[in-house]
């Protein structure tokens, strides 16, 4: 039983990373209706930005974090402004394919600059394990989870209560009405992408603080996709629950059934949910008044 609890905590902790990346995915989808397949690569490059400023340029982790996050937000803004904005109004599949393309360009770019080998991030999160009774949670994982939780909470507050958050919510419900109320929806698109850049970078840095960063770091975003589908694409609260759940299930399945099952069972669950509830567990079924 203690072992099960231990695995569960580790699973929930790794789910925290999914939550941040999935929030980034959902904010872009809600504001712009774009399915962003470059989410994983934005995680990866954001992490390299942090590595660049912190370790390679030797600016230390506080400056490195500030500049790394800023660069990640700027990258996201450039993607929106340069690649996607000119394509507004084209079929959605075109925009989705562009995000795919952007993803592989970013992966190739990172490979060119930083090479294929693992780069270790500095030890910013405490390594010392945390004991809850006789349950042991690895220190980095626990602190990573706490960090992810704080960021997710701040994001939720911002989204729910700030005027900018209200503007994003209004735009996601009805672009025409939002515009007639004076909301500059193009500014909202940029803001959503900038927020997505921050969230992905944070998620990537936390992921890499345990295992280091390679150009393949972004592939974890496939699991994030499962989280988003499970939650129902548009539900901010649902993504948090689904992220923790998928993280937990992966770890439990991996621990008791082995690694081969680990990359299979969670997707099976998502598939079953999609068949039973096509809009996901917390998704909204959009109803139009005619």
């Amino acid at each position, binding site marked *: 039983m203690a072992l099960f609890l231990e695995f569960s905590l580790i699973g929930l902790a790794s789910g925290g990373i999914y939550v941040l990346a999935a929030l980034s995915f959902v904010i872009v989808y809600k504001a712009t209706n774009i399915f962003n397949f470059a989410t994983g690569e934005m995680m990866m490059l954001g992490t390299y930005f942090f590595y660049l400023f912190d370790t390679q340029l030797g600016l230390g982790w506080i400056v490195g974090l500030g500049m790394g996050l800023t660069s990640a937000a700027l990258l996201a803004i450039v993607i929106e402004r340069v690649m996607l904005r000119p394509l507004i109004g084209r079929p959605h599949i075109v925009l989705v394919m562009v995000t795919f393309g952007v993803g592989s360009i970013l992966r190739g770019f990172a490979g060119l600059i930083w090479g294929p080998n693992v780069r270790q991030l500095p030890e910013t999160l405490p390594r010392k394990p945390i004991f809850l009774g006789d349950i042991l949670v690895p220190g980095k994982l626990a602190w990573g989870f706490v960090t992810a939780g704080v960021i997710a909470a701040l994001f939720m507050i911002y989204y729910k209560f700030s005027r*900018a958050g209200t*503007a994003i919510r209004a735009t996601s419900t009805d672009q025409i009405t939002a515009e*007639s109320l*004076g909301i500059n929806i193009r500014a909202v698109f940029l803001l959503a992408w900038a927020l997505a850049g921050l969230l992905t970078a944070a998620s990537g840095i936390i992921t890499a603080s345990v295992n280091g960063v390679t150009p393949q770091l972004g592939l974890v975003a496939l699991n994030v996709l499962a989280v988003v589908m499970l939650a129902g694409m548009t539900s901010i609260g649902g993504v948090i629950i689904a992220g923790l759940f998928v993280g937990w299930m992966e770890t439990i399945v991996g621990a008791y059934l082995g690694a081969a099952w680990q990359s299979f069972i969670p997707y099976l669950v998502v598939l079953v949910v999609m068949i039973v509830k096509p809009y996901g567990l917390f998704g909204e079924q959009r109803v139009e008044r005619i």
Partner: protein
Amino acid sequence: MTSDILVVSGVDVTFGGIRALSDVSLSVPERKITAVIGPNGAGKTTLFNVISGFYKANSGSVTFAGTDLLSQPAHTRSANGISRTFQNIALFPGMTVAENIKLGAHAQLRTSLFAAGLYLGPAAKEERELEERMDKTVIELLGLQDNRDSSVSGLPYGTQKRIELARALISGPRLLMLDEPFAGLPTTEKATMAAQIRKVVDERGVTVLLIDHDMESIMGMSDQVVVLNFGEVIAAGAPADVQANPAVIEAYLGAEA
């Protein structure tokens, strides 16, 4: 004698091969109620969408208080002093009545979209002032005190229409555009709505441009009526004159054989 606050002149709009508006010109006098009527498909909503900036006109111009509107993007209308409601109520379902109304003042707030997120101090103060203004003016005017903090989703249709009107008014517009304000309302609520619109014009000096099918309400409350048919203005003038106009009678009842 009042001056015209909105002047539409020679506006042409085509969708594919269909000419939705052809050479439409009309003037909206300040502090008056102007109604645009016409059979279904006459181009009333198209005209509204051109003025709002959602449709592009092939030619012609729309001038509001001396400035050209057609060269400006849709989201600047609110800052220019124009607000509108929609034919199908376009409230945001997940939000409360107060949140919906406050969104109407979005363009008036000084703190920009980005700054509002960054420093909460000035933004929060501005938000409080806005809430006070909202409570004192539009909430009271439209009798929404009891629903202020409830979610808009479950509220009756008539109440939702009043919320949409409140949202359009909170920004203190000079021109209020109402897309079918009477549609779907029972007779008693129609009278209330008409009285509230009249009050807004008389007490706050707002100019109203509206579209509707409800002849009784329109003829009773409007200062000027403009009739569209197949994308063309066929008559304009005082309600009584328009009602007596043979071209209007023909458009509504069909030509006599």
